[in-house]
Every structure is written in C-alpha cells, then in structure tokens.
C-alpha cells in the first residue's frame, strides 16, 4: 500500500472519531442548559466545554467573550476555523477519503460522501430551524453509518488496520484529555473534592463520553471519582476507556506486523505494547496516588509517541 494512502486512511479514522468527540461535547452542553445552574450559571459550564476541547483561546479570538449557545454551536459544529469542529472533521475525513477512493469500498465512500453532502445542506439551512439535538444526532448517525460501512464491507487488510488504528489512537487521546480537563478545570477549588458538585461534574464527564448508562451497568451505586476514573481508564468493557482504546491500537498494530513481516519495522507495535503493559500494571488507587493529572500527562505523551512511531514505520516511505 502507498504510504500516502495509509496515512490518509489513518487520518480519516482520526477525523471521524474527532467529529464524534465534538458532537458529544455539544450534546453535554445541551443537557447542562436544561439543568439547574451551578455556581456561576451555565455560562461557566459552556466555558468548561471550550476548555475540554482545548479551544478557549481560538474561540475568544473569533467571538470575543460572547460565550453564547449559538456561538458555541457555531464553533463546535460549523466553524471551519476550528480544526476540531464537526464540519472541519467531516470535510477532512471526506477529503481524505476522496484522495484514497481506491482504498475504500463504494459503501464506505457513499456513507462518507452522503455525510458531507448533507452537511453542506445543513449549512445553508436557516439556523433558527436547527436545534442542538438535531446537530448531535446528525453527527452520531452519520459517523455510525460510516463506521458500520467500514466494518461490514472493507477488506480486513492493512488499510482496515490503518483506519482502526486512527480511530483507536484518537479515542485514547480524546478520553484522556477530557479526564484531564475535569481534574484541573472543572474543579477549580480543592475544597470541592468529594462534594456534591464534584460528583455532578464527574457525571458530566460520563455524559460527554456517552457512558452514563453503561457506567451504571458496570458499577451501580453512587458515582464516585474513583469509580468513574476506573471506568474510563482501566475498564476493559468500557468502549472508550484508555485500556480498551489502547488495546485496539495494539491489536491493529499487531495485524500490520503479522501482515508485513520483516518488510517494515515494528517500533510502533513494540511501543504500544509497552504502554499497554504499563497501564495494566496499575490500579486506580495507584493512579490517584501518582496524581491523575501526572498520569494523564504521561499517557497523552505515550500516545503521541506511538503515533509518531506509526508515522516513522509506515508513512515515511523510508528507503
């Protein structure tokens, strides 16, 4: 497979996952506005969303301090100046897909192109007619269709591994960033730890990851920081946990190593396996003792190292 094709498939997976993350943020925002306000009112919650997506600065540059629902919608959904908006990600995924048309089945292309065409129509529609639920439904529906088409029709070849590698690394990154934000931003004052507000904010994180119900199935009882963190970091059943995402990355990298044998280096696979082992050696107490933020910083760095190794091993077209 061409190195450029592999890179495009990998990034197509990443962008599709990223679009979903943006929609999930929007969804949680929509819920918050329906709940009784916390200390500073919903404005503060909108702001935390911006921080969760790491976009406070760019948002302020564009909209000033007008953190309104409409501006947030524009930013997270429509705005092409925001590289992580749903529109940007779908456009980039579709553009990537168009470049590697030959590596996609017609069903996958069809799903991707339909998402893009409908997005174009949404953009010309009057904003008054679009509610938030519709925007998030739009995104999750299309991303499910694309993913379904990938799983149902793509050959289980190296291209498939690259797409799924993109999905899983992006997901590992998104979950750890959301967790990190919770620890430092959603909770500005230390006396809140363990308070009702604290637990409520952990719920927000669960919502943001569409994991609210799944969490109750898995743990039951009160929502506590330890349980939520365990669910999102170390639980192998949770579809968005760091462990699951990393496990999937390893599985796909192993697939590539098996397929390519000695004809390509395997540094990414070795690296990912190391991180996975290191993750499995921890329990949640150890992580809290180590400091959640310190742990997440380490993890985000490791994911980025794996991503760089993938780039080096497969996309550089080395001589």
């Amino acid at each position, binding site marked *: 497979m*061409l190195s450029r094709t592999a890179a495009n498939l990998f990034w197509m997976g990443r962008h599709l996952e990223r679009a979903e993350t943006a929609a999930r943020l929007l969804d949680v925002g929509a819920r918050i506005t329906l709940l009784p306000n916390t200390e500073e009112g919903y404005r503060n919650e909108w702001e935390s969303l911006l921080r969760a997506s790491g976009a406070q600065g760019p948002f302020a540059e564009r909209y000033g301090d007008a953190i309104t629902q409409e501006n947030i919608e524009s930013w997270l959904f429509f705005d092409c100046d925001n590289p992580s908006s749903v529109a940007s990600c779908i456009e980039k995924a579709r553009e990537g897909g168009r470049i590697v048309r030959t590596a996609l089945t017609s069903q996958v292309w069809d799903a991707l192109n339909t998402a893009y065409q409908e997005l174009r129509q949404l953009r010309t529609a009057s904003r008054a007619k679009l509610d938030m639920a519709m925007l998030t439904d739009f995104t999750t529906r299309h991303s499910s269709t694309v993913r379904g088409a990938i799983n149902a029709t793509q050959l289980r070849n*190296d291209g498939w591994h690259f797409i799924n590698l993109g999905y899983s690394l992006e997901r590992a990154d998104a979950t750890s960033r959301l967790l990190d934000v919770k620890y430092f931003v959603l909770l500005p004052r230390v006396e809140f730890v363990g308070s009702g507000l604290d637990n409520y904010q952990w719920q927000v994180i669960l919502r943001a990851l569409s994991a609210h119900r799944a969490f109750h199935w898995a743990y039951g009882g009160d929502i506590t920081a330890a349980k939520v963190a365990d669910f999102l970091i170390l639980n192998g059943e949770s579809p968005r946990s760091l462990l699951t995402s990393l496990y999937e990355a390893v599985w796909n990298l192993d697939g*590539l190593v098996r397929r*390519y044998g000695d004809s*390509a280096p395997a540094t990414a696979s070795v690296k990912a396996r190391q991180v996975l082992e290191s993750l499995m050696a921890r329990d949640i107490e150890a992580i809290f003792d180590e400091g959640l933020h310190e742990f997440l910083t380490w993890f985000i760095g490791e994911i980025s190292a794996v991503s760089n190794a993938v780039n080096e091993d*497969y*996309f550089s*077209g*080395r001589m």
Partner: protein
Amino acid sequence: MYYNEMMDGAAVRAPYAMLSDWVATMPSEIRQMKQAEAEALFRRIGITFAVYGEGGDPDRLIPFDMMPRVFLQSEWRKLERGIKQRARALNAFLRDVYSRGEIIRAGRIPARLVYQNEAYEKAVVGFVPPRGVFSHIVGIDIVRTGRDEFFVLEDNCRTPSGVSYMLENREIMMRMFPALFRNNRIEPVDQYPELLRRTLASVAPAKCEGTPTVVILTPGHFNSAYYEHSFLANLMGVELVEGSDLFVDGGFVYMRTTQGPKRVDVIYRRIDDPFLDPLCFRKDSMLGVPGLMDVYRSGGVSIASAPGAGVADDKAVYTFVPEMIRFYLGEEPILQNVQTWTLWKDEDYKYVMANLKDLVVKEVHGSGGYGMLIGPKASTEEIEHFRKLIEANPGNYIAQPTLALSTSPTFVDEGIAPRHVDLRPFCLCGDRVELVQGGLTRVALRDGSLVVNSSQGGGVKDTWVLSE
C-alpha cells in the same frame, strides 16, 4: 438541414425504433423521477467536475441526458476501422518525427510545423518507446453530418479525458432501466478498464522483471479530472500515485509504500509534459518526479502517453493526418478531416478574413471550447475583436466551416427534441490496437447550440452500439 439521427421526416430510423416506443410510453412523472434519481446517483458516487477558474460550486455535475445515442453495428464498423487506422497513423508519425523524420524529408509536411512545435520534445529525440507506441490512448473527436458522413474534428494523443463518463453513464442507465438492456442487444463497454490495464502492461520496458507494476500518476485531488483518475485506478486495480509518492533511484522509479520502496514499470500519467520532471522540464513543477526522464530514456520505466506525443495532435498538424495515413499505411483515410484553412497561408488568410461570419476560428493550441469564434453566432463586435487577434498572430489560428452537426433526441421539458452531438471514442494502442464499442457522446443542451463542451453548457449521454 441537420442530420437527425432519430427521425427521417416523420419516420423513425432503424437504430431508434425501440427507444421511440420507450419514450412515447413513459409518463412525464416517471421521467422526472428517473432524472432526479440519476442526478442523485451521480452526486452520491461523486462524479463531479470543477471548471477551471470559474469559482462557484466545486462539485458541479455534468448534466446527464437519459436518452441514449444509438449506432447500428454496420455504422460502428466503419467508424471503428477509421478510428483504428487513424490511431495507427498517428503513432507511426510520432515514431518517425522522433527518429529519421521521413515524412518531412519526403516533403509531405512542413518541418517547421513539427520541429518548431511547442509540443515537440527534444529531450526524447532518438528514443523509441516499447513497441514503438507513443500515444497509448487516442481520443478522436468525431462529428456526423449525414447518414454516412463522419468527420474527425480533432485528435487527442496526450491524455484524453472523459472515459469515466462513458463507463458511468452506462452503469447508471443499466441500473435505472434494466428492461431496456434486456430488450435490446447492446454491446458492453465495461471491459475498458481491463483492456487499458492490459494495454499498459504490454508496453512495460525491457528491464521489467515479472508482472509489470502499472500506476496512474495524478496531479492530485484538486484536479478537475481527479474523479476519473481514481475511478480508473480502482477498476484497473492499480495504485493512484502523486509525484511525491514516486522517487528515482539507481535507474529505476519506485513508489513509497508501507512496506518500503516498490518498483514501478509503467506510469499512466495524467499530468502534462512540462510537469513530469523538474530536472528536465519546468523547474518549478511540484507535480512531477525529479530524474524521471533519465530513467525513461534509459528504458527503466514506460510513460503513457510518451513525452512528446502532443506534437501529433495540435490543430495545425491535424490537417496533415490524412497525408500520414497515406504515407505510413499506404491506405486511403476512412474518416475524413473537416476542411481546414490554415491562416499562415496567404490564400487561406485572405479567404478566412473575408468570410469570418460564416466560419469557426480556433486557436491552434486551444482546447475546451475556449478561445474560439463561431462566426454565424457571433455579434459584429465579437467578429471585429477576433479579426484583430488574428491580424496580430495569424499563425496561431485555423478556420473551419460551421459544420451541420447531427442531432440526437434529447429530453427537454416538453418531451424529446433534437440537440447537436459529437462523439469521443477511446482507442487503445499497445501490442494490439483495440476499441470498445462505445464512447462518450457530448450533447449541446441549449436549443440551437453547437458547443458541446461541458464547461459551456454541454451534457453527456450513454452511447449504444447495437449488436447484429
């Protein structure tokens, strides 16, 4: 005054007998529904094109007309012989002008037209590509003016585009109207990609070991024909590469893959000569592969079409193609040229300047329907404007009579109406010369218009050749 391919007065001609009933019995609601369905299919598949420098919708559709254009087997056989003959002669000419130039020595074509032609590539003089083929895909634009009167409007020896429309138009017609295909015996065209792959593999260089690796080289996804490039790569099962995916090492060309470098034997390039190799041609080209031409000249890789093939298809050399057929093949041309006045000749110049209002004037190197004057449709100011352009540089122009292009029935709001059409078949030249029975029919959708270019309001149709 125009040859109507469907109607002979009030009688329906043989090729359209079945379609005539089909149209007559189709309710207009169904027709509108099917038209909308066709458009949705094109958009979903992603067959769109961008018009250079036009702005607006980057994903525009070429209008598709559901009414097929039909040829009888007997009509097609003559066309086929004429097309293949022409493709052979053009390749013989290219072989000749890059070696001994016999046709010039024999005084059958002026040396100036060849050796001073912008498309004449001095970098490949003396080099004979595998099997002596320069132009592997020859697109020949043909117009019809009567029952048995076909004329060649121009030849395309470089990288003629449009074949994806030939294939997709057929796919969509078969999907929407399967009964039409069950009830008619229509020659298939879907073997084209396989024939193309085979043709390209047949011109692999002598240094190639084992099964040749064929790739399509595209300028990238911003190019208006990118859809076609990826479409063909997909159907042929070959890689679609950009210049940056390729590199030269030790006399061979390699592509960068996830498993390291892989050698490439045949490049079907969809970029123009000047961009192929920044070391040999334009230094600022980001699309090409540095060192490619050295590998090509040393027989390490084949390029289709061969660099320099364009010298055979400009509008000045065009006038000499019948002469080429006689000179190289010893045959009489089966397909005629359109009468052409070349403005660098004094007597032609005088005639054309006196009759601008009746003629079509084209730039020698122009294409896509740009830079041309259609006398009978032009205003006095337009004619006077063009007169000044010609006076400034007569050698840059040729003139032709306004042809009475045949019409084919086309769907319009009120039913069907005759609209002017042309035809571009795609002839393949490798170890054999082959042609699928079909081509791209372009139609001028505006009533009375003679311009079929998609950039100027033209559409496309499925083209049928009925079997015996």
